[in-house]
């Protein structure tokens, strides 16, 4: 809560009204119940009064959200492979989406995944590009493959079995939010065996301090 001063200060010989008295105490009672803010705490430089890490809840630093998919890629006995359709539009990688409703804040988004081609793929434009998409908007600096959609016909990750990771820090507004790992190719090509995404993890850390 903000710093509070009593609204009512009785003076000598004044008749005290109970409503004034209640109004003087209520702000403290209400805001001390879950709304204490930065003004109400001594900082670490105040000897003896500093908050210790154990004094605060788990959410005082980060609130994490995460999704993952675990898959035996090499022998293919477990898990479900995500096949990459070769099409020039962004498509969500299955099991790499996190949605929530919550307050605004600064978010550190990390994606880590395994790209696995099922055949040697050297056709220009067939290689996949990946990115992080926040509420429908692809974050340009998170694109892996190429960000030059108009000028780079060779764009995409053509060569082989290869793990990747990207991260970005973005401000996200309050309300309903969705973060996804998305994939596309430069060309529209339905022929041939599709590449797959195997192990993957999407981590979202909301800074709450």
């Amino acid at each position, binding site marked *: *809560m903000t710093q509070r001063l009593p609204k009512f200060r009785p003076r000598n010989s004044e008749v005290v009204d109970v409503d004034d008295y209640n109004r003087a105490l209520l702000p403290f*009672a*209400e805001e001390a119940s879950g709304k204490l803010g930065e003004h109400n705490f001594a900082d670490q430089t105040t000897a003896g009064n500093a908050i210790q890490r*154990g004094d605060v*809840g788990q959410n005082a630093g980060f*609130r994490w959200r995460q999704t993952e998919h675990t898959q035996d*890629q090499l022998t293919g006995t477990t898990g479900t492979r995500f096949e990459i359709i070769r099409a020039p539009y962004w498509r969500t990688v299955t099991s790499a989406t996190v949605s929530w409703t*919550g307050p605004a804040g600064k978010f550190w988004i990390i994606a*880590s995944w395994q790209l696995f081609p099922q055949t040697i793929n050297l056709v220009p434009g067939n290689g996949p590009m990946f990115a992080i998409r926040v509420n429908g908007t692809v974050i340009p600096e998170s694109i892996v493959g190429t960000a030059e959609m108009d000028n780079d016909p060779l764009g995409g990750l053509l060569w082989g079995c290869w793990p990747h990771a990207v991260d970005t820090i973005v401000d996200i507004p309050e309300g309903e939010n969705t973060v996804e790992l998305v994939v596309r190719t430069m060309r529209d090509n339905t022929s041939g065996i599709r590449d797959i995404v195997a*192990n993957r993890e999407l981590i979202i850390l909301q800074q709450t301090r």
Partner: protein
Amino acid sequence: MPVDLTLQAEGDTFDAASLNDSLGDVETGLNALTEQDIDEGALSRQHLPSLVIEVAPLVEFVATHVYTEADCTWPGFNNNAVAPGVGWREINTTGSPGGGTDLETTFAVARTIGSDNVGGILVLADIHLQTIRDTPPVPGAAFGVYACFAIQIEHDTGGGAAWETIGKTERYVDMRNVQGDLSDEFLHIDVPIRTLIKAADSTSPITKVRAVTAIYDPGAAGVHETSLRHCNLTALVLHAGAP
């Protein structure tokens, strides 16, 4: 705890006792504040200097280290077997013989996810893969051979400290990355691994985190090896809660 304030009403006795009751309610509440009384975002750098409880020491080395198929054959998915033979080899400065500096970091104290505000352990590792090749190098012979990597945690589930592979972190690179003359198969690929170790992965005291490697050969002729160079790994113990 919430402040349970007793309000004064018209007609109530207004004396020292009733005043003290109300003030006492506020005093009692303020003197017993809980974690839940603090609004989200209330704390700043001055109150909570770091968002993380501990940054395990960064381990980093730059030197070529070689791993052989005979020493560390991939043991299968999500398997905890360790080298030599069929099992994971810790990435270290001397390669397959082991005994050098491991790509491994140790926490100051054992960290249990879900306790003491530890919401998870964020692991960040990068491994520079130089080559996958036949020994001695033969053009094309290493085609289809995989260099395998994973993150392991050392935790004590009751039977003493033991290493466990985190299956979701297994990563692979194969020799299809390079075409043409394979007598000198310099890939120079960064193998990045990022993972959040959470309660679903371990609720036991975690003492160490490390990166391991192995070689998977589905049938290529010859004996293969991989060489790694610049490696780094760190682990952040997050002061964090689930949604």
